[in-house]
């Protein structure tokens, strides 16, 4: 019971990753081709049925898995690469500089990825890239805040003070003592952020501001399913279920990892 969220989260993520990997090598049908009659109920050979255009839903779901993971993971990695160093610097700095960085992160925190993506789409046209960039930028402040809070916590510990007093260069203190100690907190944040990123991307492609027209994403599939609600409501089940399971997986993983954290750091995460 104690580590069930970690186990279920890992299982769900494993399932999505496996689906994405299988999809790289094998697919029941071409996800972009019209392979069967329109709006067929689940059965054989179309396990999950066909959509309004006669595309195989199962293949499109499999193809969507890699896109969902790619966008979720890459955007969060990008946010971490920018946000973590800024947060650590802000946390270690004892001057006004740290406060300014923290204040800037506070102002930008909570600026919704979707609004940013809409701005990008208006200026540049919507694509996988604008969606990913918007989600990444919107996630940066969360990393700055959490990295700063955790760094400040770690800076108060004896061995860090000792390292500083013994003349270790600041950069080495950050690299050797701060980063390894705040890494678990950042891991929790990253996992939760991927869940949020997947939801945000789904919303964007549902609105038609995400990936291009010929790439199946779960959000876009839901948009198409919506026109068929009266004829074939089941079509709306699969893509939404996939989004929910992927998000749930990363949320649970984050929760499960949090239980393993040092109690002093748990409050921050």
């Amino acid at each position, binding site marked *: 019971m104690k580590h069930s*969220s970690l186990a279920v989260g890992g299982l769900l993520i494993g399932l999505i990753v496996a689906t994405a990997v299988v999809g790289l090598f094998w697919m029941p049908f071409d996800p972009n081709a019209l392979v069967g009659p329109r709006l067929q109920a689940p059965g054989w050979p179309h396990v999950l049925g066909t959509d309004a255009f006669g595309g195989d839903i199962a293949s499109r779901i499999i193809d969507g898995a890699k896109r969902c993971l790619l966008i979720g993971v890459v955007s969060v990695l990008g946010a971490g690469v920018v946000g973590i160093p800024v947060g650590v610097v802000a946390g270690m700095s004892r001057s006004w500089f740290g406060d300014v960085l923290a204040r800037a992160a506070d*102002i930008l925190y*909570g*600026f*919704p990825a*979707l*609004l*940013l993506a*809409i*701005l*990008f*789409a*208006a*200026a*540049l*046209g*919507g694509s996988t890239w604008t969606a990913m960039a918007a989600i990444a930028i919107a996630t940066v402040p969360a990393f700055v805040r959490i990295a700063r809070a955790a760094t400040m916590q770690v800076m108060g510990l004896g061995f860090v003070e000792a390292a500083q007093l013994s003349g270790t260069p600041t950069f080495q203190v950050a690299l050797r003592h701060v980063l390894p100690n705040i890494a678990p907190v950042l891991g929790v944040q990253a996992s939760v952020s991927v*869940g949020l990123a997947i*939801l945000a991307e*789904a*919303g964007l492609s*549902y*609105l*038609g*501001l995400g990936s291009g027209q010929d790439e199946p994403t779960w*959000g876009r599939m*839901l948009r198409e*399913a*919506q026109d068929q*609600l*009266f004829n074939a*409501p089941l079509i*709306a089940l699969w893509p*939404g279920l996939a*989004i*929910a*399971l992927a*998000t*749930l997986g990363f*949320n*649970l993983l984050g*929760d499960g990892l949090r239980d393993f954290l040092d109690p002093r750091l748990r409050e921050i995460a």
Partner: protein
Amino acid sequence: MSLLRSLGLRVLGLLASLLVASVLIFLTTNALPGDIAQVILGTNAAPGELEALRERLGLNRPLTVRYLEWIAGVVQGDFGTSMISGRDVVGLIAPRLEVSVSLTVLGMLLAVALSIPMGAFAAMRRRRTSGLVVSTISQVGLAVPSFWAGIWLVIIFAVYLRWFPAGGYVSIWVDPLLWAWHLVLPVTALAIVQASLLSRYVRSSVVEVLGEDWFRTARSIGWSRVGALLRHGARNAGMSLLTVVGLQLATVLVGAIIIEQVFAMQGLGSRLLLAVSQRDLVVVQAVVLLLVSAVLVINFLVDMTYQVLDPRIRRVGEAA
């Protein structure tokens, strides 16, 4: 005096945030590569026409001048004219405010109303199955995209049961009953996800309250658990809920943009998306600035309320 000073500092902070937000929005829509005149006229446009349109839209002038003109207009309530329809932007978006405000306010209220009993129940029964079930429901609710929830509400309550309309909107001034009837499904869709999130905060703050010394004291002198929670715990739990509600407001506003699409409602969101597809940057800027300002102003108000409600913070503010 010091309370006034801290109020003054916060107002300055709010103004600074609004300024930064407006600059960022302006830069994103105006300084990113891409020629708007080209987009509007298409790739076959003659160079002369392009030049004339740039001249007409004022795209040839320096960025700073354009920003200052824009922001000076905004301060006076003039958001410019649409690049596509040539109409006044205020006139375009004002009729749509009602839909967005109704969705956001009701969605948030319903989410709060659901989250308090959910969170308190999950906290008080946290070692029993019933409490774990509620926690699990909120965990699952967090992962569900609101538009997917909306789609299922339509399938169940509009397509099969026919209890509620599948979409559309009726103004509260035209018919309050029809207004409410049309809002049931979209507001529920918005609130499900938010309630799941908020209930987790309620749960953890109630768990905290249950462990406090004064709570044990209240219990020992005969208060029931629910009674002591309501009498003494509500304020503590309410504080943390208030902060999260403020932070989540942006999410609900944006969630409403998507929910509008599910239920074919003509709010700010659908106007914004139309402007995006037309590359009508003046309208896009105006709507995004409006949404961001709403979020910043409401967070400011939440912050102030917090100060008034929590004497501990008030005292810290005075000492500073």
